[in-house]
């Protein structure tokens, strides 16, 4: 293979293993060849840089088009009466929200303190993995925190045959997305099935209820967990004391 072909194949992504070995050898022994190769490689980098800068400029333009939180302007005199009426409504509204917020503040704090996404313990993602199965995609998405895509892949996986863990990880995704009600439905289903992740489902159901501000159900599930399982017993006991 001549020098011209070697360089051509490298940049058109058609260089095979043998060619790659030859290229490396030439780069070590032929200074003129190396200079030419480095020049073309720099050119490639420069063009990528230019293209990247141009795409980023476009993205900044898209970003500017996205409506941001509106800035509230000062009301003018003509709006005085409306302002007073709106203020009264606002005060009542804030009072109600405040009441609920304060009531639930401790619960949310406790939830934040105790909730951690359950790690992927069922599918090993390894370096250089060539597995492109739904299961692989699902857990790459899950571990990356892309819970919406993980749900899509897990639901798809479920259609191909039941795997005991799917509902549990879908529920985890929903917990992370803040959909506690959907997660609760799934945790109850897991508890009914009496198969995998039953103890874990109790713990997370308790946390979901805590987030919902339902201390009674949260306590019920924590008591069931400490009475019937070893999983997270210490943390559950500690949380029970804090709830009380």
């Amino acid at each position: 293979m001549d020098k011209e072909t070697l360089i051509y194949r490298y940049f058109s992504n058609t260089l095979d293993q043998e060619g790659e070995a030859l290229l490396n050898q030439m780069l070590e022994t032929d200074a003129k060849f190396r200079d030419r190769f480095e020049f073309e490689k720099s050119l490639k980098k420069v063009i990528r840089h230019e293209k990247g800068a141009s795409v980023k400029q476009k993205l900044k333009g898209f970003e500017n088009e996205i409506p941001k939180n509106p800035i509230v302007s000062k009301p003018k005199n003509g709006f005085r009466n409306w302002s007073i009426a709106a203020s009264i409504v606002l005060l009542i509204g804030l009072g109600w929200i405040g009441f609920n917020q304060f009531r639930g503040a401790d619960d949310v704090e406790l939830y934040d303190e105790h909730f951690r996404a359950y790690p992927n313990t069922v599918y090993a993602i390894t370096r250089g993995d060539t597995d492109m199965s739904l299961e692989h995609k699902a857990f790459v998405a899950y571990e990356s925190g892309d819970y919406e895509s993980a749900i899509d892949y897990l639901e798809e996986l479920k259609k191909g045959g039941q795997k005991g863990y799917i509902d549990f990880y879908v529920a985890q995704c929903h917990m992370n997305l803040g959909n506690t009600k959907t997660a609760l439905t799934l945790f109850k289903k897991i508890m009914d099935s009496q198969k995998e992740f039953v103890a874990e489902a109790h713990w997370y159901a308790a946390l979901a209820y805590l987030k919902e501000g339902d201390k009674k159900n949260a306590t019920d599930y924590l008591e069931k967990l400490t009475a019937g399982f070893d999983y997270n017993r210490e943390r559950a006991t500690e949380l029970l004391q804090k709830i009380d």
Partner: protein
Amino acid sequence: MQQTSRTISLEDIRQGSEEVLRQVYGENRDKFLNFARRYQLSEEENIDVYQDAFVAFHDNVMSGKIEKLTSSVSTYLFSVGKYMIFDRMRKNKKKVGSQFDLEIVKDDDNLVETLDIDDNALTPEQQLLRTHFGTLGKKCQELLTLFYYRGYTIQEIMEAESYNSENVVKSAKSRCLKTLKERIAANSI
């Protein structure tokens, strides 16, 4: 007018339409920012990282490094974004624990490993090259871009740009490179 969004393919992205870019950018933005907020960067930095991750993804699609999607677009963006967030945190000298080690991120997200992410700045020589590349004629810039950026073969360039033969493409490419080198040399003297 009713807004409709359709499923975007890699080929759609490669066609270079601004509307396609806008749609993909918008569809993944909020998801990405929600994900990024768990780390210690400001909202402004998160947006900047999202854009950089998007540029890297786009670059790999255009160069043919990503030939087909093996995961959703958002998974690619999250993997690249996570890598970039940790890199920034390290550069910002924020407190970075062992869980934020870049090597670990690479191990976990093998998608990043399959991509070509070049975040090094241009050297002074490359800056000079950049300046002179910009002075080349449009035809030369297009030809060199197709070859070095898109990874097209000579035959593909001939077909895409309606050249008469492969030899014409080869000669044109050599001329463009020669001109570029001459202009850099003249500037360096």
